């Protein structure tokens, strides 16, 4: 048993961190938009392509890295930490869907020439007669660059079908996104697709787990930066990090961060296990529960950490220039996307109440064994 990243997984995360660290730091001026940081975004995209990150979940015989969600969360923690001005997790998941549905575009997607993304949020429904039509309103990051969009389709309660939609130059209407490094647009989608382009794949859960992982990385950045500040800043003739009033807030943040990491790593491991056992209903159910747990917890705790980090700093963190707001904004956007804490807690409540009502109950089958 090993409930931690392997040496290889840690190396992958390290190489992503190194590649992203050297990107020019985003220094947005008030009023600037994502357009102004497009050069950084383009650079980020190139680095991710070089590292093969888009193909992380694509089988090796299709030109990908052939890895799983555990590796994907290790990478997403780094893109979150960097507040990367590029929709990396959306591309990772959309490319995985492309590998299953659109072999014809896969090489363009992997080398970065045909960019795929996925909605930050939005509801898409599917109707089957007379043609298969996907319709709805979505909020799409980097829509102006994107050639394809990933759609997670509702099928009963869960969204277990995924399809790639060609955008055909549709740009939509730019929105005023809270996450300044993640410009997005509102698009009306009404597209006829061919049924055989739809694949059984929980792209919504994948995006939810990776969004939680980005929250982990972004929150860790906030806490690291805050702890460094607490060790330097002096008031009353003392380093403020000696004050228990601040230490205890930092300790609570640290505890929540450890819990967030555990939840995300575990949700990813269960997702991979379930993917490897497509006929195992219990594995699927356990993966589903762990996914809701991770996104529910990280959405709330991550936001709290970022907020507390601003409070521990004092006035300096409230300034635009200091830049902590970029991570605060990113975590807020991620917490509000791919299912809010409220939505995931509601799913968990339904599962808990149903589970408690059956013989053996909630703890009848712990995931191990």
């Amino acid at each position, binding site marked *: *048993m*090993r*409930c*931690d*990243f*392997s040496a290889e*997984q840690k190396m992958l995360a390290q190489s992503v961190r190194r590649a992203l660290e050297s990107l020019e730091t985003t220094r947005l001026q008030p009023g600037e938009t994502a357009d102004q940081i497009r050069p950084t975004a383009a650079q980020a995209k190139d680095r991710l392509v070089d590292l093969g990150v888009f193909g992380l979940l694509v089988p090796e015989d299709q030109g990908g890295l052939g890895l799983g969600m*555990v590796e994907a969360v290790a990478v997403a923690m780094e893109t979150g930490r960097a507040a990367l001005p590029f929709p990396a997790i959306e591309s990772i998941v959309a490319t995985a869907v492309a590998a299953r549905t659109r072999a014809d575009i896969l090489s363009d997607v992997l080398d970065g020439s045909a960019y795929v993304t996925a909605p930050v949020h939005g509801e898409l429904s599917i109707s089957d007669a007379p043609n298969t039509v996907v319709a709805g309103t979505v909020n799409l990051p980097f829509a102006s660059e994107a050639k394809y969009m990933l759609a997670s389709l509702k099928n009963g309660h869960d969204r277990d079908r995924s399809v790639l939609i060609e955008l055909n130059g549709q740009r939509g209407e730019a929105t005023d996104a809270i996450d300044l490094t993640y410009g997005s647009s509102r698009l009306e989608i009404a597209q006829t697709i061919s049924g055989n382009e739809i694949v059984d794949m929980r792209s919504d859960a994948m995006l939810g787990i990776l969004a939680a992982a980005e929250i982990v990385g972004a929150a860790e950045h906030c*806490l690291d930066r805050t*702890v460094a500040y*607490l*060790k330097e800043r002096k008031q009353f003739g003392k*380093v403020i*990090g*000696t004050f*228990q009033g601040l*230490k*205890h807030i*930092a*300790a*609570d943040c*640290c*505890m929540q961060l*450890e*819990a967030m990491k*555990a*939840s995300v*790593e*575990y949700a*990813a*491991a*269960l997702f*991979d*296990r379930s993917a490897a056992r497509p006929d195992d209903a219990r594995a699927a159910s356990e993966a589903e*529960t*762990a996914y*809701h*747990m991770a996104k*529910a*917890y990280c959405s709330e705790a991550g936001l709290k950490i970022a907020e507390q980090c601003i409070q521990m700093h004092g006035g300096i963190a409230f300034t635009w220039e200091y830049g902590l707001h970029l991570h605060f904004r990113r975590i807020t956007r991620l917490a509000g996307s791919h299912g809010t804490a*409220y939505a*995931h*807690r*509601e799913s*968990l*409540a339904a*599962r*808990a*109440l149903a*589970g*408690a*009502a059956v013989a053996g*109950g*909630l*703890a*009848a089958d*712990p*995931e*191990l*064994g």
Partner: protein
Amino acid sequence: MDIDLTPQQQSFRRGLRQWLDDNLPENWGGPAYLGPDDDEENAVLQTLWERRLYEAGYQGVAWPKAYGGQGLTMVEQLIVSEELGRRAAPEGINTIGKELVAPIILAAGTEEQKRHYVPRILTVEDIWCQGFSEPDAGSDLAGVRTRAERDGEEWVINGQKVWTSFAFQANWCILLARTNPDKPKHKGLTLFLVDMKTPGIEVRPLVQITGRKEFNEVFFDNVRIPAGMNVGAIDDGWNVSVNLLGYERATARLYRQARFMNEFEQLLRKLDARPEITGNPYYRQQIGRFYAELGILRQLNLKTVSRIVNGDGIGAEASVVKLFWSELHQRIEDFAFEAIGPAFVTDSKDIERFRYNFLQSRAVTIYAGTSQVQRNIIAERMLGLPR
């Protein structure tokens, strides 16, 4: 990440489940899970239960065979903990012996001490209590004032201990005493093994918030014990005990998570007949939140066990887990009160379990290092903030 158990470990789990079906005290579970109200009757039940577990091979799971253990790993220990917790099995009377004394002796004791004391803990021939805290040495444990002075081939002990759980039933005590008042306060302490029948020891039970009498005051008045009853070196008691406390904090009661889940589930079943609660978003949100946090507590436990079996140490992470579970447990009990409503305060019929745990859980953020002490440890050792 390799989260699956080996086939052997899976079959170990199945065997234990069957054994529990066959051996748990009759009608165990539900409201009856606390055992008899009478403290003495309860002590007998807990002792007999612990012996049965030992005889079936489910005690000392990860301890060496040479000292009566099963010679397995922390993964099997985790399995036993989870299965016991999931049935809310009796917690036993010798928790201090199992969770504190034996690990200390195994790590720091002489070969003779290991061979003599550890097996007797497993068979419950000896029941142990922990003489650490004092009226003026609680969170500031190194402020211990109970003295042990050398007199020929004996040590003479004088002082007072408090919050000493199971002292009334115990026949042995692991005692932290000051052997050298001239050294800095962390450096002059020694750990001793003290026979509770030694003349001069007086135990006075304390009635707790729940009405039960589990902890005690213990008075030492010229208590003479033989030289050689120290564990670890003289004046090194702080190192011996504190280093182990962290490890124990992380591993001793892995069953808690499953036990809390069992309790949460009992609560949901109780609420099931009340759609005004189970259909209300306010309560559903809290149910979802606690379910998530209970799941994450298990994941933190898995990480702890994983670190140990893979040879990575456990340090201040233990404080993270302690802070997480203790505050979670308290909040779940608070939720039980809120969800059960007025009936919770007027009549304990049918809800005794929740009311007992509501009261009992006030202790969890105090014992084994208060939440404030854990936060200091996390801030200083994990985040590197200055003292």
